[in-house]
């Protein structure tokens, strides 16, 4: 059994964990922003699918991954615009619209795929990696963490950017107020609807980007239902992270590592059914909730549409 866990294999596992974590990270960061501003964005799975599809279409036809990320983000934003219009502007129920959008995008992207790609199944070439000098030479860790596509480092940098945004900028204050007491924000002269719209559209962009990464880098192709519930995991991550972007990062990595663990255990010949291993991240989080549950509070106005002057 000695050869099983070679350095190359270990770093491939960790590399895979990071690749799997990035879409969750982006979705979680996006969802977090919506939730901070008081919008429960259940439609994020739909936004990811739109991003995955359009992202793939963009990258495939243009041959540029970056253009793919752009079109993917735009796809997410397009779906988010519906959400913003229906749930933020005119205050429709966020759960109804969210689920409807998810169902609709599942169907629509599958339909488009059927007419467009279901005979050719085009696949993209490997994503070119940005190799970080020095760091990438560290054994195991280096190839696992420092040989990714540039967008991965940007996503991680975004975690800290978001942290800064929330804690140090006026917009961060606005977002928090929009989620905790929108009326107070309104009378302070900031348009609540606009603030929430910004948040939802940002969510769309991030979710779309996450979907595009999943399709273009994670899989290298698009097939129907490719997101496989990643959006819902993003919701869970965002809620657990309680407004702290770094926790989304930790959570996403936990899920990624657990996925790679599945492979590692199989290769090591440990015979636990994959179902059981798949339960591990959820079990871990559940146990965390049982132990530290009380602290998982959410914005007071989450899910409640804001209407000026309503009693």
């Amino acid at each position, binding site marked *: *059994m000695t*050869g*099983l866990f*070679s350095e*190359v*294999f270990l*770093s*491939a*596992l960790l*590399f*895979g964990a990071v*690749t*799997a974590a990035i*879409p969750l990270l982006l979705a979680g960061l996006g969802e977090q922003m919506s939730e901070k501003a008081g919008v429960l964005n259940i439609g994020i799975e739909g936004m990811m699918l739109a991003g995955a599809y359009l992202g793939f279409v963009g990258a495939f036809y243009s041959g540029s991954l970056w253009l793919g990320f752009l079109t993917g983000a735009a796809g997410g934003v397009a779906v988010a615009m519906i959400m913003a219009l229906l749930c933020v502007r005119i205050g429709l129920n966020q759960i109804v619209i969210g689920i409807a959008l998810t169902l609709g995008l599942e169907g629509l992207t599958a339909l488009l795929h*059927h007419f467009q790609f*279901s*005979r*050719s*199944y*085009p*696949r*993209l*070439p*490997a994503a070119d990696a940005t190799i970080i000098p020095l760091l990438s030479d560290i054994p195991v860790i280096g190839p696992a963490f420092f040989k990714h596509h540039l967008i991965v480092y940007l996503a991680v940098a975004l975690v800290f950017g978001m942290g800064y945004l929330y804690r140090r900028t006026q917009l961060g204050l606005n977002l928090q107020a929009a989620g905790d007491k929108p009326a107070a924000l309104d009378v302070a002269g900031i348009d609540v609807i606009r603030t929430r719209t910004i948040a939802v559209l940002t969510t769309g962009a991030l979710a779309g980007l996450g979907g595009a990464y*999943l*399709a273009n880098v*994670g*899989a*290298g*192709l*698009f*097939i*129907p*239902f*490719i997101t*496989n519930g990643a959006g819902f995991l993003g919701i869970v991550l965002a809620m657990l992270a309680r407004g702290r972007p770094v926790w989304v990062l930790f959570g996403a990595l936990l899920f990624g590592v657990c*996925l*790679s663990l*599945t*492979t590692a255990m*199989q*290769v090591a*010949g440990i*015979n636990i*059914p*994959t*179902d059981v291993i*798949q339960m591990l991240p959820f079990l871990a989080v559940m146990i965390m909730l049982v132990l530290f549950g009380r602290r998982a509070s959410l914005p007071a106005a989450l899910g409640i549409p804001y209407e000026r002057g309503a009693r």
Partner: protein
Amino acid sequence: KSIAILTPEEGTDYGWNQQGIDAAKAAGKAAGVEVVVAQGLGYGDVRPTLRELASDGASLLIAHASGYNTSAPEIAKELKVPVAIVDTPNGLEKGLVADYTLSGHQGAYLAGRLAAKMSRSKSVGIVVSGEPPSWNSQSAAFAQGVKAENPDVKITYAVIGPAAYSDAAGGKRVTESVIASGADIIFGQGNGSSFGMLQAVETTKAADGGKVYFIDVIGDKSPIDKGFLLSSVVWNIEPVYAAMIADIKADTFGTKHYTIGLKDDSVKLLKTAAIPDNVWAEIQTLREDVISGKIKVDPVYDAAAVRALMTSVAQ
């Protein structure tokens, strides 16, 4: 008059669904009967579709998914319509229920021999997106083939997830890990996720810097190949369906098992340009041996047994 086939996914997957639909169409055409295709039905309750197809006058319902093998016989009894189901050898009922338990294990065995011959690193991988019986039997036979060819070849077996059929990203990720563990030939089974495996093979270099090859199952992906497809265990279900239609006409439906195998080329290994002719010739000899019974390949359907086989093989 007409026969109907029901598949869980669209018949454009270069795999199980497409092979079933294409075969049904071909068999129908040959026998001069109309073929109704109900595809993309999912793995839920297909009783409504079965009833409707029966009431529309189909005289044979082919329930082309193991998930349909409870509902289809029930509808057969309810409406007195012949149905064909898969993976249920003891479900036969004269005039009503026929079983076709398809297993490409003989072909997979040859694929294993082929992989062992061609692997430069003496390490091959099996990646599956789930563990249904028909895949298990091929995984096991592949491993047996590898070991029979060369006991020193390492086999790495990895399941993407419990039901990761459409998890293309997972397929790619797991395949990349398996390649990193040293494999330079991947035997892959999985519907949508197998495209992710293919992508991984196309974009990842083997340990020696060379190409990684992919061995596919059931369907023939050469139309979309970019030069990484080594072979495929191709199933041809048409003889099965043709026999069924004939049995219905002869009133012997539901009395026999239909199988596929190397003998009549209903299971065959795909020859690609990547396989050198001498290797191919050796494989053809082995094929004769399997057909003649000189080499015996037994199907192993149970997931736990397959895993046991892998670990024992892996040592």
